[in-house]
């Protein structure tokens, strides 16, 4: 669908009003922020319209025009509102100059089917703007937390110093609090002690069972699958309640072992799902070939089957790890003060006195999840590649 449609320059009567309308919207916000929305609309429309006309009809050189607009509006912004003004100005300048030329040259039509009516073209781009807004909704919370964690004040919003990019507005003090607080460090330690043990349990049991489940003839396969998947389906609060009642009956409530067992149970469905998915593409003739050449089942498993399903096992393990590392409801009930994990500490912090240290912790956790996400994605690709290579 590249350059399906021949593009042509558009008349002034089309693009100048459109750019002016966009300018009016921008002007509305700037205007209301400064006291008068109506003035903002008028001024915005006039400036944007004039700019579009000026660039396309008088300057004509696109590259020069766009650079000049960006720089000039940025400088105006700087004198009006300092460094934040500079950045906003540059963004506005870049956008409006690009928008003018985009419309003027008719480039917006280049990538859409030639038979679309103007209304359909408008909808096409409106739809993209809507999707962009939803993506922003998805990602904003994470993006807001990161800069706020460098806040020098104990506020949960951007201070004027931060907005003006004053170095004094930023500090690592919340990170320092996190690394110096015995509460937080104890919680990290507990999380590190619990999550790997739970992961180990669920991965070792789960992989074996997944291999069993992917054999050709398994009696009660559906029922067994339903039981093994159930920890993922049953609401956490119900699992937590049941485990609290039952574990206190058998003396596991409030012990390290109890929390590990509970977390292992919660992680098992993820291991089962990922490993069985990997095994779907596993070529059984490989194990037969290994057996044919004299390998015993254990050797076959470790030398032939395991290396091939390893990506699935590792990503299942990562899921199980994340489940345990993030889990708070069950540990809240099954654990006692001695098993206070990182999420638990965050939960108490959020519920009682919310301190910005939480934002520093959150940022660190986001960094960890980005790493894990990358690993899982790489493993998935590798697994697909391996599967593609083996004859199905």
């Amino acid at each position, binding site marked *: 669908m590249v350059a399906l449609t021949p593009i042509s320059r558009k008349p002034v009567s089309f693009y100048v009003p459109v750019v002016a309308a966009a300018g009016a919207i921008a002007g509305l916000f700037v205007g209301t922020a400064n006291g008068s929305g109506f003035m903002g609309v008028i001024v915005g429309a006039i400036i944007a319209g004039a700019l579009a006309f000026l660039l396309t009809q008088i300057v004509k050189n696109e590259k020069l025009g766009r650079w000049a607009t960006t720089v000039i509006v940025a400088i105006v912004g700087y004198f009006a509102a300092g460094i934040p003004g500079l950045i906003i100005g540059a963004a506005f300048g870049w956008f409006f100059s690009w928008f003018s030329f985009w419309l003027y040259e008719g480039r917006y039509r280049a990538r859409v089917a030639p038979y679309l009516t103007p209304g359909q073209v408008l909808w096409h781009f409106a739809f993209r703007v809507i999707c962009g807004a939803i*993506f922003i909704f998805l990602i904003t919370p994470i993006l807001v937390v990161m800069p706020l964690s460098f806040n020098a004040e104990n506020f949960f919003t951007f201070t004027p110093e931060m907005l003006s990019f004053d170095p004094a507005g930023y500090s690592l003090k919340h990170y320092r609090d996190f690394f110096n607080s015995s509460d937080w460090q104890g919680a990290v330690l507990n999380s590190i002690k619990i999550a790997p043990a739970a992961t180990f349990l669920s991965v070792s049991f789960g992989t074996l069972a997944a291999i069993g489940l992917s054999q050709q003839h398994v009696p009660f396969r559906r029922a067994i699958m339903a039981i093994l998947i159930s920890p993922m389906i049953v609401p956490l609060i119900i699992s937590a309640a*049941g485990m609290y009642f039952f574990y206190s009956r058998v003396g596991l409530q409030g012990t390290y072992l109890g929390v590990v067992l509970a977390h292992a149970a919660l992680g098992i469905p993820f291991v089962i799902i990922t490993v069985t998915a990997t095994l779907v593409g596993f070529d059984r003739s490989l194990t037969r070939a290994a057996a044919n050449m004299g390998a015993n089942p254990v050797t076959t498993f470790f030398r032939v089957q395991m290396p091939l399903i390893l990506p699935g096992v590792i990503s299942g393990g990562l899921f199980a790890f994340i489940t345990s590392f993030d889990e708070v*409801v069950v540990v809240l009930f099954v654990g006692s003060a001695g098993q206070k994990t990182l999420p638990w500490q965050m939960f108490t912090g959020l519920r009682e006195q919310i301190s910005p240290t939480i934002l520093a912790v*959150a940022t660190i956790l986001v960094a960890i999840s980005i790493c894990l996400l990358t690993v899982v994605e790489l493993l998935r690709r590798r697994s697909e590649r391996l599967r593609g290579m083996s004859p199905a």
Partner: protein
Amino acid sequence: MSDANNATTAPNSALAAERAEDEYTGPMLAADGTPLKRSLNRALRRQKISALLLIAPLLIFVLVTFIAPIADMLFRSVENQIVQDTLPRTTTELKNWDSEGGELPDQTVYKSLYQDIYVAQERKLHTRLGSRLNYELTGASSLFRKSGRGVDDIGEVYQDQFEDLNAFWKKGENWNDVLGSDAWLAAMNDWKKASGDAQPPFEMRDGIADILPQTADYYSIFADFVQNEDEDNLYKEDPWPLIYSAFYDDLTGPTAEQVATYAGPGATELAEAAAAAPSFATVDYMDAFADIDKDWVELPIWQTIATYSPKFTNGYFLNAVDMQKTPDGPALRPEDERIYWTLFKRTLFMSVCITLSCILLGYPIGWILANLPARTANLLMILVLLPFWTSLLVRTSAWKVMLQQQGVINDTLVWLGVVADDSRLALINNQTGTIIAMTHILLPFMILPLYSVMKTVPPSYLRAAKSLGATNWTAFWRVYFPQSVPGIGAGSILVFILSIGYYITPEIVGGRTGTFISNRIAYHISSSLNWGLAAALGAILLAVVLGLYYAYDKIVGIDNVKLGG
């Protein structure tokens, strides 16, 4: 035919082939001469067993660590042994009482109540029963606490009279001499507390149970309590006042004549007590309890005890749906006490809202991901997966920070002039906050199934529809949308299941009006300690979720759950 046979009998195929070709006409045989069918069956069985053996450890693990707790919870939602265990005699006596007759129970019931509460308060169990019954009848908790303190006085009436009659009855040693067996007394004599050995367990003297049945009964309870729970020296311990009232009952009751047959230690004192007892001042148990608290001479507490005396009850479930047990059977609670129905309705309503907003936001994203070139789609997919992989608490704290009155969203809106500084929006601690935050948290669970379904819809269908003259909308609504419905179904059920049982996010951003049923369950487990009600609420929630899960399995198939795209 012979080819197939050869393949299965590789080791000595020459022989088998020969046999198959020449003389053998019966069922096909395997290499070792067994019929092929049986041999195959055996191989199949072995395969099944080895598969099961591989699954077994995990299955057992999940059954023990997960299914057993759920079963325990379900059991707790109907279990009600505490009333019968704490008040065994009273509940037996109450069986003959007509709870709807409008009459109070008779003296025997009050007497057993006294005995039960006395034993219970020594074991410190009466307050637990009190708080259990308090869920059904407000005030029961303080009533039982008061009665626990009051019952001492009732028994002391007899204790004082026996002790006044003869100081013999004051001493624990004497009681033990009368009631304990000779062997036990001897063993007790040799036992030294300092030695660290276990105390010789109390043994009743032969025949004493016939002479003083009730005394013997309570004395063994007392002995068991002193030896095993208090771990005191039984021999030196003075008996409870309860023993004295039982003693009085024995001496004046139907077994009074038997006393004369006794010839062991303290026989003279016993005969003297038997002679004096009929002239003792007696206790009116009903009045005594009325003195403790006048609630005891009113009907509600008795009706409550009678209703909750069976071992199993549906009372917790009735409570969970805003009903209560009454003498006329289950009935709805008064209008202003119906909190759970409101809560269930709210949970369902908010889950539906969250599911709908997830569909609304997820559909365009699924569409655009499925229709963009693979490279761009993969890049945008990261924006979906990053929140999915980010810790739930991180996202919840982000929303808490953003939605606050002084938070980022309100600040931005004020700066833009959309809202005035003094009328900042209340976005947190209400339903709005919960819906916004949970929509964000659950959105990836909608997008991923939608995306995987939409990817399978060929784009040529839409183009074909348009070339046949359909408008944009018709082409979408009549051609594309029906094919994406499975994705909507899968995503909706997933989001709905997840949201209906959510706890953390509503707890943090929900405030008072934005909480779910799960928050109430947590409250009953950790604060009000009404575990039975928590279990009943949990059982109802579990039933709803399992129903949806079943639907999901039917529609999508649990094997098709995909993680991370």
